[in-house]
């Protein structure tokens, strides 16, 4: 019985044109090819756009040094910004940018970590239901609205509190604090949720309290993620132009204190961009500021990658 069965099968296979079947491209094969082409085309265009932007900003940005023969060191360390008179010291803006960025991150981080712990460990249900939408909403508010609130509320408040005009690094810090808070919080929440549950269980089963578990196990395991969150927040603060420009006072001078008008790289760019002529030194100088911004964001990105890699190592099992 079995033998007849197998010989029957063999007969049937011989009638099939195997050479045709195995060489013939089916519809699925065509779809596969088409899908792959579309995806390669898209990625190709994007790579081209990014590469041209990098090239464009770099070539424009170094024109200050190659065509106008400004010394790079003088550009980075000079404190006098008067492009009309040929003086382009960018240090006041560099200092301004770093000051608002670090100050905002410094103020926002404790609040962000506190909120994230509340949302993941203390009240996970309420956190997911109420706080998550609120924080996502904060991310979505346009920066001009933040700037407007800063101008209408923070600047007068600072004027009353410390005197002067109210414009300055501290007002910018306040506005940026609110703007980077949701970024740092959501990413910290993600990294806390990603901490394996068994770490928490192990700690609780040993009699550690909830707070000990959070501070010694969960936060520690989430540290790479939290650092990444802070850096993303800093990148956002560093690159924010509009809201900062509205409250910082836009004076391209070395900031003497936190409440005197100052400028950042971005605010100087937006302020000056309309007043310069293409190809002249004042215009090229602005491109150099843009180049610094670009290099800084590349640096932030690289930092995130390094941290992610080191974080992976410590989680390997």
């Amino acid at each position: 019985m079995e033998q007849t069965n197998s010989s029957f099968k063999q007969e049937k296979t011989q009638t099939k044109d195997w050479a045709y079947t195995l060489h013939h491209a089916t519809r699925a094969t065509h779809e596969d090819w088409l899908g792959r082409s579309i995806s390669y085309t898209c990625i190709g265009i994007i790579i081209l756009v990014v590469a041209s932007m990098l090239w464009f900003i770099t070539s424009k940005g170094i024109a200050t040094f190659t065509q106008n023969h400004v010394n790079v060191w003088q550009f980075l360390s000079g404190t006098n910004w008067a492009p009309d008179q040929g003086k382009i010291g960018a240090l006041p803006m560099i200092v301004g940018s770093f000051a608002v960025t670090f100050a905002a991150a410094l103020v926002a981080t404790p609040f962000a970590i506190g909120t994230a712990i509340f949302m993941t460990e203390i009240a996970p249900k309420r956190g997911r239901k109420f706080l998550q939408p609120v924080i996502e909403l904060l991310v979505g508010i346009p920066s001009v609205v933040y700037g407007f609130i800063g101008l209408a509320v923070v600047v007068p408040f600072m004027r009353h509190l410390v005197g002067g005009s109210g414009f300055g690094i501290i007002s910018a810090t306040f506005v940026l604090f609110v703007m980077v808070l949701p970024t740092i919080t959501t990413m910290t929440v993600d990294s806390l949720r990603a901490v394996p549950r068994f770490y928490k269980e192990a700690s609780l089963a040993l009699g550690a309290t909830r707070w000990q578990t959070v501070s010694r196990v969960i936060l520690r395991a989430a540290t790479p993620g939290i650092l990444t969150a802070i850096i993303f927040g800093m990148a956002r603060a560093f690159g924010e132009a509009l809201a900062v420009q509205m409250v910082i006072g836009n004076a391209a001078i070395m900031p003497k204190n936190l409440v005197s008008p100052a400028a950042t790289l971005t605010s100087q760019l937006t302020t000056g961009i309309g007043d310069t002529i293409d190809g002249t030194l004042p215009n090229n100088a602005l491109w150099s500021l843009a180049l610094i911004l670009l290099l800084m964001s590349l640096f932030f990105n690289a930092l995130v990658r390094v941290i992610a890699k080191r974080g992976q190592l410590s989680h390997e099992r």
Partner: protein
Amino acid sequence: MLKNYSFEKTAVQTFDEHTTLAMKTENMQVFYGSNHAMHDASLAFPKNQITALIGASGSGKSTYLRSLNRMNDTIATVTGKIWYHGVDINQPNVNIYEIRRHIGMVFQRPNPFAKSIRENIIYALRATGVKNKKVLDERVEQSLQGAALWDEVKDSLDKSALALSGGQQQRLCIARSLAMSPDVLLLDEPCSALDPISTVKVEETLLELQKKYTIIIVTHNMQQAARISSQCAFFHLGHVMEYSPTTTMFSTPQIQVTQDYVSGSFG
């Protein structure tokens, strides 16, 4: 096809006053929301013995075990009494952190912290405020020796615990619990993620540990229960069906469902 067994007829042993008990439960019920996961579990655990909880998946044995040191607090409602040193520890005013220091737990999957071997062991001691380095070092050695791991790791205490093999990690988790000098040790299928040789080592460790500790172990593996336990409780669909000395359970089970389970008709 699983037969419908009656939950009316059960055979649960009790102990007379001459047996020293480490802990016992009275009418313990566990609910996950509206799901009644554990019905009326009344079991007593003799001191310095190994008690095995056996049963198929979903029979409620892990649920029962996790309720004993209040690890189910956040996810389930547990009613009934859990007696430990004359205190009902299933009361809201009981300090759960203190309970867990006396009733240690080891989980199914080895779960050492991503720290060094030494750090893993002194983690809980540090949390209770022990700072003296000499005391900590002593406890590290004692605990690792208790878990039969000392000879294998004594030269690499500062290496990451994650570099150990699965079996070594599980014994490290046992050592970590021992560091708190508990008197009851709860183990939730501690060998199910381990190979046979590591399993033998863990079992040998447990047999040694029962001289000083009371051990309650959930296991899927009936041979394991037979090898190491003195008492054995059989769980079925959220009910404790039979609780008897291990030799009795495996030679002359008293009710049909136990008979069917230990002979391998289901599970």
